[in-house]
């Protein structure tokens, strides 16, 4: 039982990281990035290149993949999203879907990547250890610990760094932020970079569990429920939502008939949307005329 919960939490951590990427971008620019899963996939491929083809150590792999993805994220914002800044939500959703298609297709064209499936080696091998009668998989514990570390780092960044505060200001009110002398467009670009970096991190954590392949990004579709359950505009909500979805999936896979595992996340999200459309941590402000 505890093992099941642990597996659920580990899976939930990955959902939470992808959902975190959604939330960061949504908070800042009120656009939902449907390509988040594909950014994660691309991060996974960068990490694969660094560790397998170039033979770098694990920490250097992480740094390389995250740095590369920050650049990619900023590039996407500059080239694709800035021209449609201020357009209706639907337009922007469709454009990010287009970005996702391009990334998914482009990966198969890169020599050495292609449409094959790769295993991703990590220093935390398949080992397990026992603690108080429960068997822990090292892999899962590592995922949980690294997620916690990243979330802590992000918290410190948003709380204490000048850029982090500027990002918060932008996400609360772009016009007011612009009046306060914050370069809103540049901050938006950096938020996209940050979000892509988080996605790369999620990709690295997910890679040992699912293998690296060009359709890995579809897990991003599972992170939507996570983001919605937590409340789309809330950073702690994304983490909690991710954990909830991970746990629900693990439990549904164990106790409910076959087939419910894949749908469980979506049933939960429909229920949440019916009862509390803004999610658990979402703000419930009303628009007044």
């Amino acid at each position, binding site marked *: 039982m505890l093992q099941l919960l642990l597996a659920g939490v580990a899976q939930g951590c990955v959902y939470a990281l992808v959902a975190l990427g959604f939330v960061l971008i*949504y908070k800042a*620019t*009120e656009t*939902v990035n449907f390509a988040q899963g594909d950014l994660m996939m691309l991060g996974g491929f960068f990490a694969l290149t660094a560790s397998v083809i170039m033979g770098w150590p694990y920490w250097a792999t992480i740094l390389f993949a995250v740095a590369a993805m920050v650049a990619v994220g900023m590039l996407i914002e500059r080239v*694709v999203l800035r021209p*449609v*800044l*201020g*357009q209706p*939500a*639907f*337009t922007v*959703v*469709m*454009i990010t*879907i*287009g*970005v*996702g*298609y*391009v*990334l*998914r*297709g*482009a*990966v*198969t*064209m890169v*020599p050495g990547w*292609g*449409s094959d499936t790769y295993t991703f080696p990590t220093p935390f091998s398949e080992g397990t250890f026992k603690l108080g009668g429960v068997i822990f998989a090292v892999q899962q514990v590592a995922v949980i610990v690294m997620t916690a570390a990243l979330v802590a780092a992000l918290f410190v960044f948003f709380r204490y760094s000048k850029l982090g505060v500027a990002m918060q200001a932008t996400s*609360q*009110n*772009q*016009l007011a932020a*612009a009046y306060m002398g914050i370069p*809103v467009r540049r901050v938006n670009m950096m938020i996209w970079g940050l979000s892509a970096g988080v996605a790369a991190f999620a990709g690295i954590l997910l890679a040992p569990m699912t293998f690296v392949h*060009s359709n890995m990004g579809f897990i991003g*579709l599972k992170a*939507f*429920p996570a983001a*919605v359950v937590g409340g*789309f*505009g809330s950073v702690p909500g994304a983490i909690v939502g991710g954990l909830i979805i991970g746990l629900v999936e693990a439990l549904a896979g164990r106790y409910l008939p*076959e*087939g419910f595992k*894949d*749908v469980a996340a*979506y*049933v939960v*999200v*429909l229920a949440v*949307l*019916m009862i509390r*459309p803004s999610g658990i941590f979402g*703000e419930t*402000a009303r*628009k*007044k*005329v």
Partner: protein
Amino acid sequence: MRFLFKTDYAQDLQLFKHSGQVFWYGLLSAILLAAPYLAGEYVMSQLHFICIYSIVGLGLMLLVGFTGQISLGHAAFLAVGAYTEALLQARGVPFFISLPVAALLSGALGWVLGLPALRLKGIYLAIATLAFNVIVEEVIARWEGLTGGNSGLHLKPVELFGMRFDGEASFYYLCLGLTALSILALMNLLRSPTGRAFVAIRDSEISASCLGVNLATYKTLSFALSAAFTGIGGALYAHKVSFISPEQFTLLQSIELVTIVILGGVGFVHGAVLGAAFLIVLPQLISIAKDYLPSNVAGSGLQAVVFGLVLILFIIFEPHGLYGRWLKVRTWLELFPFYRRGMFRRQKSYMKSERLR
């Protein structure tokens, strides 16, 4: 350039605004009616698909283009239409009953999906419809007693009043007729009070409700009608491919259906048909282009890249889609040396927030 002088209120309601339109649409119909005698078997098969996707596109256009709601779940309605048709046909129900039933069932399901739309807006609605699509797909895959699960269902050709629509030409006329009826239905709907209420909701929900439009009724009605159109498309689709299984109705299919509306031009009835034609022709162009490209580029990913790029470029450079481009060309010709570059320019602005701060 033609100047219309309206001398009667009835002129505002006419389907054809002037005799030029009558002539050009008449010519188009004549060409389409003659198509089986002009085109080969392969082209005919593509024309079937264009007709079917046009019907689906019209349904989506009603929802996305005229009511301003988002749906990433229309493949679910396509599936419901297709499966209803397949199951009814297997039980010997004639086509002229099973087609309306398919439309009705899809419409009923659309009404159900429309209920959350009353509380949800924008992105939340997109995710609710996305979740709905995944659930419907999974239900179809798991309900093996009824739907045959992942092994799918086979269909026989349409049979209507003793006539079998199994040839390329006969099935084409069936699709074409239903497409024409759908277009007429949509045009008539849009000039009725109901259609104007839809457009009012799209432009501003608050002002629409102030003017006495019941948001709840009209939003669910829009979802239901849109789903019914899609259901008709689904029934024809099932007959066209003659084998249906859950993996034809995934989220990716939904996204493809939405791109019909985006590429054709959001908010134009013509856009649905143009978008459908473009979506069908694009893969053909790609497969032709593949012969001229190096082998590692011309792999399985090429289609996704081209599809994504087309979507991105259209949204950035031609947000009104193919029909919007045509409007620009026509305006340029009509106004000939007086066309200005900025006539269709979008207003740039800071984000208008839906949140309250």
